């Protein structure tokens, strides 16, 4: 098959319908990995045929926090660390919605860490996409709760000595029902993982390792985002079903990727209904699962 190079007709980008094109250009740096993650997520949404009027994205603050503002879906750009509680309220108010939280490592497990563990514990029905670039990007490269040991950050000018979280293990041990990790190099697996997780319920957690070319790569002299993608290519080890106790990420060491957990467990709302039905019997009058009085139009 040959590709014609003389055809210069402007075509719409395949995910343009999912993006607020009027807000382009975006703020992300060249070779930053966040855009790729958005592309995979949008593709998965398109492939899974979700009613886009029922899909919404909630972000916190930071470079990844911009996602909610760029996607042509309803959503919030919430405050720093609070994407999960905002999303929890949204889900309780309108249980029929597909609620996705899209934010970074500093936001979701740094300042928002408490919400992350409790939403996982409750198996709140949220899809949580965490873009992990090992550093605080937007504010200038400070140490994050994910910065690998010995890696440099602007607040650890001589290398990090704080032990980082292993996020799949954190999510799994708190009770998440779906846990996966991919890098933004594995666009196919990542897109499939999104599509699969969209079809599941409960607290679904997908960690995406992505290059922060401007800060993490520069502070650690790792080249450009492209060099980091090459590093992922050479150092990713796919181990579906791996024990999450064994997927820690060391500085410039192998990155274990795959789907680590996929278990059906009752969600917060299901548990609530079941509990009250059992304890109150006929006296329990549940709000209709599709959102009760708030939902007037159909």
């Amino acid at each position, binding site marked *: 098959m040959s590709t014609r190079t003389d055809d210069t007709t402007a075509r719409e980008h395949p995910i343009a319908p999912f993006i607020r094109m009027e807000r382009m250009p975006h703020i992300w740096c060249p070779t930053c990995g966040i855009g790729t993650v958005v592309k995979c997520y949008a593709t998965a949404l398109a492939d899974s045929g979700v009613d886009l009027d029922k899909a919404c994205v909630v972000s916190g603050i930071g470079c990844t926090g911009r996602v909610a503002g760029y996607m042509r879906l309803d959503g919030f*750009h919430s*405050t*720093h660390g609070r994407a999960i509680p905002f999303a929890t309220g949204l889900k309780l108010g309108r249980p029929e919605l597909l609620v996705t939280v899209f934010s970074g490592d500093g936001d979701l497990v*740094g300042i928002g860490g408490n919400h992350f563990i409790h939403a996982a514990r409750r198996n709140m029905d949220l899809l949580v996409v965490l873009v992990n670039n090992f550093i*605080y990007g*937007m504010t*200038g490269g400070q140490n994050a709760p994910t910065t690998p040991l010995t890696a440099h950050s602007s*607040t650890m*000018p001589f290398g990090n000595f704080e032990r980082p979280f292993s996020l799949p293990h954190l999510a799994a041990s708190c009770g998440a029902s779906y846990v996966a990790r991919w890098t933004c190099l594995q666009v196919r697996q990542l897109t499939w993982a999104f599509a699969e997780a969209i079809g599941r319920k409960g607290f679904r957690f997908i960690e995406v390792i992505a290059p922060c070319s401007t800060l993490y790569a520069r502070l650690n002299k790792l080249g450009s985002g492209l060099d980091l993608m090459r590093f992922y290519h050479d150092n990713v080890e796919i181990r579906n079903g791996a024990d999450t106790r064994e997927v820690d990420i060391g500085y410039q060491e192998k990155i274990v990727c795959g789907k680590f957990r996929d278990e059906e467990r009752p969600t917060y709302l299901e548990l609530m209904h079941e509990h009250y039905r059992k304890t109150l019997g006929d006296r329990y009058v549940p709000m209709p699962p599709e959102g009760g009085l708030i939902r007037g139009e159909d």
Partner: protein
Amino acid sequence: MKKVIVGNHAVSWGVQLARAEVISAYPITPQTQIVEELSEMCADGRLPARFIKVESEHSAMAACIGASVAGVRTFTATSSQGLLLMHEMLHYAAGGRLPVVMADINRAVAPGWNIWTDQNDSLSQRDTGWIQLYCENNQEVLDTTVQSFKLAEAVDLPVMLVLDAFYLSHTSEPVDIPDQADVDTFLPKREARLKLDVNDPRAFGALSPPDMYMELRLRQQEAMEQALEVFDAVEAEWGERFGRRYGAIEPYRTEDAEIVLVTSGTVTSTARYVVDERRARGEKVGLVKIKMFRPFPTARLRRALAGIPRVAVLDRNLSPGRSGIFAEELRAALYDLEPARRPGLDGYVIGLGGRDVTPDTIGECLDRSRAALAAGRAPEREDLWVGVKP
């Protein structure tokens, strides 16, 4: 030694000179450079302090409180949303009578996400019991940083020094950096009156039932009232050693003035320029800069403004449903003047969310107040918002 540094680094230098011992912070634009510089100072030994980048601003202040109770000198810096997240801990630091020092970079509050300057973040912490000092230039920032520790430790109250986002935080100016030895004589090591001590065990933060609570608040109020005089003494000593003083308030060309602007922060510098220009044209205008917002220098402001026909307050902040906050405070302060000497007061709202405040903006305020003076009544609400798009 003179150096050309941004306002954020003027804070870091001040903290280094003050020999803070525990620094705990969380990144937020446009403050981050302060703590980045400090983390380097701590790591490479220039500042023998323990530094931790914690997981939120709430934790940053909590850690400062913990360290302060242990008797050491503590510092943090934040801005906007970060300051709002600290709110609970701000009350704790002040109610616990702990001399924590913090720099706040004035940045607008969300939603309407905005990283540019306005004063609503710090002013919405008005009632937390912190001393608040607003700075006009980078030299004042450095000087105030060091002085803040001395003031805080003298009255056992926390101090927030406040500087405008970008206009100071990211703007380079020549700053005279005092010698460490001189600063050490000015500000010796902290001697905490009360601290955690295994040989003299005490519990801090205990339950205070109705028969105790009010007295705690009264002590706090008394300490706040003392803070103004202590601030004067601290500045006087600083002035003797280093030749610079700013004053809790600073009247500028107010003699025989018909209209006096009241300003804070970097708007002051622009207003000085406008006042000079108008004076050169023979207009009788002046200005009063407010540096200290808490404790509010009520009597001093009353003296400075008594008998002035009209006062134009420039507020880069808003209390929705009322007006600019400095204007409200000032209105209350001037209420006790006898009516004949009580100025008419126009509270202008300008420059929210970093909108430019140019000499024209300030000139416009002066012109509207002049018209109000001639007409003998206050401008309409629409005329008090200057620089808004139609």
